[in-house]
């Protein structure tokens, strides 16, 4: 279970990998805020529909497009992503506490809480479910006539949410790698920092979605 642990202490006494992931997250903040800025600047400036919150009638055909955003579906996917963050912290706690004896009267639920494989799997599953919701949303938008080339809303919306979806995809792959390592040799306290770094990335993806959900989907 215990691989050789290599430490990367800096002059601050902090592990360089942890500093690196926080610096990376800081730079990612700038990336996503630039994409959100672009979306907000273009908001309401599309000359053709479909539009996010308003009906739009094509003057040439007379066809009326309904507001395109599907709030119930997106609310569900938001909830799934929020829950994935809970699963992630439970996975990290399970890895950190691996090897510690459970109380003699530990019940079924306490034993489940100590299973890092279960929580890593649940986190990856929730991430994949979120991606499924996004694939459904993108597909339905295209069927309703909104593509990345249709109007300013389509361009900025697909770019912003597409970048976020790509980050979620990377996170799911990262989680699956950790899960396979856990299944092969078991993750223990010596691996906790590696899981922690993945967890920080995953939570960051979650907080980005918190902002997107409000600014893009809820605010009209």
């Amino acid at each position: 279970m215990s691989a050789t642990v290599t430490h990367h202490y800096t002059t601050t006494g902090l592990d360089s990998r942890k500093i690196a992931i926080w610096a990376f997250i800081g730079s990612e903040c700038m990336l996503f805020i630039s994409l959100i800025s672009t979306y907000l600047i273009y908001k309401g400036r599309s000359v053709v529909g479909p539009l996010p919150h308003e009906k739009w009638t094509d003057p040439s055909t007379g066809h009326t497009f309904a507001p395109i955003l599907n709030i119930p579906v997106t609310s569900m996917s938001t909830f799934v992503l929020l829950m994935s963050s809970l699963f992630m912290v439970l996975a990290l706690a399970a890895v950190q506490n691996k090897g510690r004896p459970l109380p003699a009267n530990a019940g079924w639920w306490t034993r489940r809480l100590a299973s890092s494989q279960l929580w890593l799997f649940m986190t990856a599953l929730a991430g994949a479910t979120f991606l499924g919701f996004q694939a459904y949303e993108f597909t339905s938008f295209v069927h309703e006539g909104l593509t990345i080339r249709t109007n300013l809303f389509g361009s900025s919306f697909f770019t912003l949410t597409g970048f976020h979806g790509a980050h979620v995809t990377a996170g799911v792959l990262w989680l699956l790698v950790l899960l396979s390592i856990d299944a092969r040799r078991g993750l223990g306290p010596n691996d906790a920092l590696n899981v922690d770094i993945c967890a920080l990335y995953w939570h960051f993806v979650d907080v980005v979605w918190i902002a997107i959900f409000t600014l893009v989907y809820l605010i009209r």
Partner: protein
Amino acid sequence: MDIHLAPDSAEAAAHVPHGDADHAHPTWSTYWKVALILTVITVGEVWAYYLPSFVASRAFVPTLLVMSALKFVIVVMFYMHLKYDHKLFRALFTGPLLIAATTLIALLFLFGHLTVLHH
């Protein structure tokens, strides 16, 4: 939740901040409570979206922004355990975030789009 592994050498040991390992760590029950709070806020946001009178009011956008910011801060402080971590990590995160947020506000002003905040 920061993991403090034993340093490899005496030199490294000298650089490990004393007392870091004694930081208060969130417990499982804290994580569940945080998840519950996040869910309640999200339900509140969606509920507000479906209240036409509230959507038409001037309080709609600020309320949603505050709720979203609250969720953001809760996740960062508890799930990303920034509340319990070293100050350097806080600086690495909040520094770029503040610069980016300032740029966002400046751009919205420049493009005459800050009306989005006034609905």
